[in-house]
């Protein structure tokens, strides 16, 4: 077995897919393209496909990553990339393939850059962002079926920008991923909106770039183990 790192974008109508549905779309795209995928063992074998960093429902992703295990005999070629592009549904665009050995560690997200638009007073949001920079802690409470968890957003969210747009502001920020988890974009927007006294409704959330740890050296090296459009 070897595994392919599939860099793709998710936008348009596909941004409303859940994480599991996005994985299913990747699987379907490979099947339609005629590129075989390795199956798990057991009574009900499943295609070995994973998306290491789930994208929130409603968010676009410009540089998403899928990890797909393929049998060794499947060659990574420009034709394979073209077939995948042709077989993908609207809103999913396969941009690049990189190969990695079976024993290479799986890529882990280090940081991801987000942008979104929040309606309301851009000046108030600018002030809220400045306050965020000055506070030692910015605590939010996450409620889930497992219980409540307090999270200091300052440990996760940095590199914040505010740009006025019509009727609101475009927020840019970077979230760091740690062994104990990460903040969610909505949690940060909720905090800024609360401090700015605007509605915490974001639109057009985009994940623009992800920095990965454990990315194999072939990625971007142009050594014959990568194919891009």
């Amino acid at each position, binding site marked *: 077995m070897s595994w392919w790192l599939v860099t793709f974008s998710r936008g*348009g*109508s*596909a941004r*409303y*897919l*859940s994480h*599991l*549905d996005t994985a*299913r*779309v990747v*699987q*379907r*795209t*490979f*099947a*339609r393209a*005629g590129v075989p995928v390795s199956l798990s063992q057991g009574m*009900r074998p499943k295609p070995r496909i994973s998306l290491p960093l789930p994208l929130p*429902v*409603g968010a676009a992703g410009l540089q998403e990553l899928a990890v797909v295990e393929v049998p060794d005999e499947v060659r990574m070629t420009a034709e394979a990339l073209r077939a995948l592009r042709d*077989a993908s*549904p*609207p*809103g999913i665009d396969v941009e690049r393939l990189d190969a990695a050995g079976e024993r290479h560690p799986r890529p882990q997200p280090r940081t991801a850059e987000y942008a979104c638009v929040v309606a309301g007073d851009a000046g108030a949001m600018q002030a809220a962002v400045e306050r965020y920079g000055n506070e030692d802690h910015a605590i939010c409470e996450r409620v889930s079926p497992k219980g409540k968890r307090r999270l200091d957003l300052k440990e996760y969210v940095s590199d914040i920008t505010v740009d006025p747009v019509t009727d609101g502001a475009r927020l840019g920020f970077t979230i760091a991923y740690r062994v104990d988890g990460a903040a969610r974009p909505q949690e940060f927007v909720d905090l800024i909106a609360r401090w700015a006294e605007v509605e915490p409704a974001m639109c057009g959330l985009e994940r623009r770039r992800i920095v990965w740890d454990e990315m194999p050296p072939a990625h971007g090296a142009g050594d014959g183990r990568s194919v891009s459009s």
Partner: protein
Amino acid sequence: MSRPGRYTGGEFNTRAKPGARPRVVLSYPDVYEIGVSNPALQILYSQMNDTTPAAAERAYCPWPDMADLMRASGVPLWSLETMAPVAACDLWGITLPHELCSTNVLEMLDLARVPLHAAERGEGDPIVLGGGPAAANPWPLAPFFDAFFVGEVEHRLDAIVAALASPDRPGRLAALGEVPGVWLPGRSEGPAERQVFMGFSASPPVLRPVVPVLEAVHDRAVVEVMRGCTAGCRFCQAGMWYRPVRERPVDLVVDAADRLLDETGCDEVSLLSLSSCDYSGVEAALKRIRALRPGLRVSLPSLRIDSAADSLSRFAADQRGSVTLAPEAGTQRLRDAVNKGVDETQFEEAVRATFTGGFTGLKLYFMIGLPGETDDDVRGIARMAATAARLAREIARGRARLSVSVSSYIPKPHTPYQLEPFAGAETLRHRQSLLRGLMPRGVRTSFHDVGASTVEASLARGGPGSDRLVEAAWRLGARFDGWSEWFDLRRWEEAAAACGVTLGAFDGAASWATAVDAGLTEEFLAAELARGREGVPTPDCRDGECAACGVCGSGVAMEVLG
């Protein structure tokens, strides 16, 4: 809002024909995950887009959370292909899969801001056309539709599209009324004749179906191998409605399966029909598909018990997981009465074959409330379940799951039981209670909601005026009545009280016959009723003797592979 992907389209194999006219929207009145799997809508969508000038788009019934949002924000129902309002289309085709979808039709009309009643619609409104199995009795929804199409529509699509070319709405409706199979409520002078697509055998199945990107109820490629079933079960509306049997050649089936797997990316293909083991080419098709695609999972959705033991041994390699068998009734007397030709020995052999074949689950389907049923017939269901449980213990040694589903029989139009009384809520509750107390331990038993069955019975044979009940229930908040989490009997009881009707009551009039001619003669239906009362079987006409049901003739005939 749950699952926003239901409302955004973007599936594999969707068609876009911007600017094409007429613009047609096709709808299934249930949530996306159910509707997108419907084979009939896939046929219409493909054929209309690929072979006519029309642009066919789709819309499904928004889930209540989305409906609330749409109303709050003033956004009307849109189609998935163009995001344009459904109300702006030329023709809105809504398939009617069963009676409990009725309130969803009104919900969709309201969300689309199309006037609820056809009489209130004007030049700018779409023509709303109903079809599908529940159009076998259009009366409960008649005032909400401009027209109904009765039967199979494939060979009439061109004529329907051409009818929309008339410059004004009255002209379009008049032209539509000339298309065979179309019934215009309040305008047509007689019933519409059910249409039978005699090109079925020679035409390929849908080869580029829409493949959902969300998880749908059926996630597999579908090849319709046969249409119609003449086994002659007297309770079965589909068996009567889709006559005669027509089979597709094996070459066509195998080629379609191969191409469909490439088009869809599915890892399973279903050979679809009302009774796929009766398809003459089933063995040849399976053998060739297996040779083409080793390891592919092939499912046969309907197994008949009288041939199940044989089928299970032949198809075991394809049927992983569980097997469903439908004895329908608990005693030989009642099975003979309903013409379900199954005896206890065949049943035991089928159960034995299930567990010796390595299947890990067995589901048994029964009905209660059949005409002539007694408490002893209900006890017979428990006895059959006990037999199956014993065999599961002996053969599978605790590794198998056994479940029993017990539905309530609803007499349907165009069947021998069409004028028989509905068992009634009290009787059904009594028999459910009786059965609960008798079922062996370890068997998971589920029952249909008696309230929902009573509503279904009210609508299945409702005559002119029964639409008031549907509208009153919808105005009281009824929708998604086929979903237990949304069905609320109190709404329907309140609506019935307001309309002065009794739920489940039947006035004895075959009012559907004034709108729909299914092609079955009254003599045949009466003879079948009499034979059923005497317990006399009627053999499948494909085995030789014609039962004189009245369907064949005038270019309509059985087409079975030689």
